């Protein structure tokens, strides 16, 4: 019973600290000072740095989706509709979620490891002692970069995914190029496009805020840094899938 209470207390404390972090980050977004150089560095690290992994993920996901859809659609004699299926799947679900998962593996773990190392070597305390708010200097630039770059990366993943699917559709399924693109175009509704545009902002926010939170709560030296890195990837991956569900549900109510 006591053990369960202890676990519950820790969980509530963790959620409370996470909410405080979100509040402080929001405050850092609207009040001075801003650390412009750090913001640009994070855009480069999170956005440009994740481009190759997102390109590869998008390409292979689109391609394998075309392969699988081809087999299924053949059963209904609807191979020519492969574009419709690819477009809707990539834009609404696979593009945003897979991009966010890839970014959580690459960026979320990196943020947790970097901030965790700074905490255990007292660099974060040194920042505070030197008159710098770590939220403004370390957290806000990463959150802003994640919030804006994950949607951009998702757009790239969607485009590359549909191109990967086109290669398979034309090269292997023998669907004419114009038929494929027409099917993609006419298969999409404006609501789908809105969903593709809105969802990645939430997912980007989840990945970086969880990475920052876990990193800043690191204790226990280098072992603690390792633990934080693992926890950040696990928590942000689960967070991405859970938030994806709730945001999708909300957007369906609002848009469709």
């Amino acid at each position, binding site marked *: 019973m006591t053990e369960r209470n202890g676990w519950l207390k820790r969980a509530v404390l963790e959620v409370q600290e996470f909410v405080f972090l979100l509040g402080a980050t929001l405050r850092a977004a609207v009040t001075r000072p801003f650390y412009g150089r750090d913001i640009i560095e994070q855009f480069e690290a999170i956005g440009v740095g994740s481009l190759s992994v997102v390109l590869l993920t998008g390409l292979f996901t689109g391609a394998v989706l075309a392969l699988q859809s081809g087999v299924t659609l053949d059963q209904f004699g609807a191979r020519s509709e492969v574009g419709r299926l690819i477009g809707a799947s990539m834009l609404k679900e696979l593009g945003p979620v897979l991009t966010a998962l890839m970014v959580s593996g690459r960026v979320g773990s990196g943020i947790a490891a970097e901030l965790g190392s700074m905490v255990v070597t007292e*660099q974060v305390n040194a920042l505070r002692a*030197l*008159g710098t708010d770590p939220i403004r200097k370390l957290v806000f630039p990463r959150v802003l970069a994640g919030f804006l770059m994950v949607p951009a990366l998702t757009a790239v993943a969607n485009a590359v995914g549909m191109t990967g699917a086109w290669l398979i559709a034309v090269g292997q399924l023998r669907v004419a190029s114009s038929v494929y693109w027409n099917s993609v175009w006419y298969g999409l509704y404006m609501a789908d496009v809105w969903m593709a545009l809105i969802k990645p902002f939430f997912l980007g926010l989840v990945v970086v805020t969880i990475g920052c939170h876990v990193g800043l709560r690191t204790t226990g030296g280098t072992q603690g840094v390792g633990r934080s890195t693992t926890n950040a990837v696990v928590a942000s991956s689960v967070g991405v899938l859970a938030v994806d569900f709730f945001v999708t549900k909300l957007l369906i109510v609002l848009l469709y």
Partner: protein
Amino acid sequence: MDADDPLPTSQEVLSEHGAPIVVFDGVSLAFDDKVILREVSFALLAGHTKLILGASGAGKSTVLKLILGLLKPDGGVIWVNGERVDTMTEDDLMRVRADLGMVFQEGALFDSLTVRENVGYKLYEESDMPLGDAHRRVEEVLGFVGLSEHIDKMPSALSGGQRRRVAIARAMAAKPRLLLYDEPTTGLDPITAITIDAEIIKLRDLEQVSSIVVTHQLRDAFYVATHTAARENGDVKILAAERDKCQEAEFLMLRDGRIVFEGNATQLRQTTDPYLLDFLS
């Protein structure tokens, strides 16, 4: 002082030699069931040095974190430079921290920045000082700690002693009135430790910086308490201090969160307390 003269401001009073610059009044702190500090009270006077001794876990480093406002006490009052820090918000604390410098255990240098960027961090990032002036100040303080030639290196390329000296340079770059040292010589060989002690003495005697040194290295604590720095023909010399100067270095021994001794080097050497004798042996 003439009757017509205006009264000195609180900051002018505090900047005078011998004014109380840090005051702890009945400060207590506990983490869950573990009591770290119990009703700790002491004062540091401007221009003086407080040497806080104690075994690991006695609460020494916690005292420094409380002064900086990195931790909040459960009870008691803390005054730093005339401001009550125990009830301050993080934003207000930034103003108090502007006049403090802290040398962390192991240095806590930013490993992604060069020595120049580390030392000048506060000037480059948190002040309106023109870039040229900031560069000059960084070069000046690195010259003071004898590391001018390492200005463009990364911290990882420095030895342990050099890293501590860079940390001292970083703490002093913005000319604070109070410097806090957390185990500045722990893990260093005796020769390198003496160079760090010399920097603490130089800052105190040549730059008039008050200091609190937390350590369990008795040799270094006594060295800082019993030596003084003086300029002779442009060179800085470390000499044995006169009796009066030795009085300005006060020892404070913590045990299980309580102060068990407070006095100067001579009084500490003459103690008959069994715990202190054990610690000194």
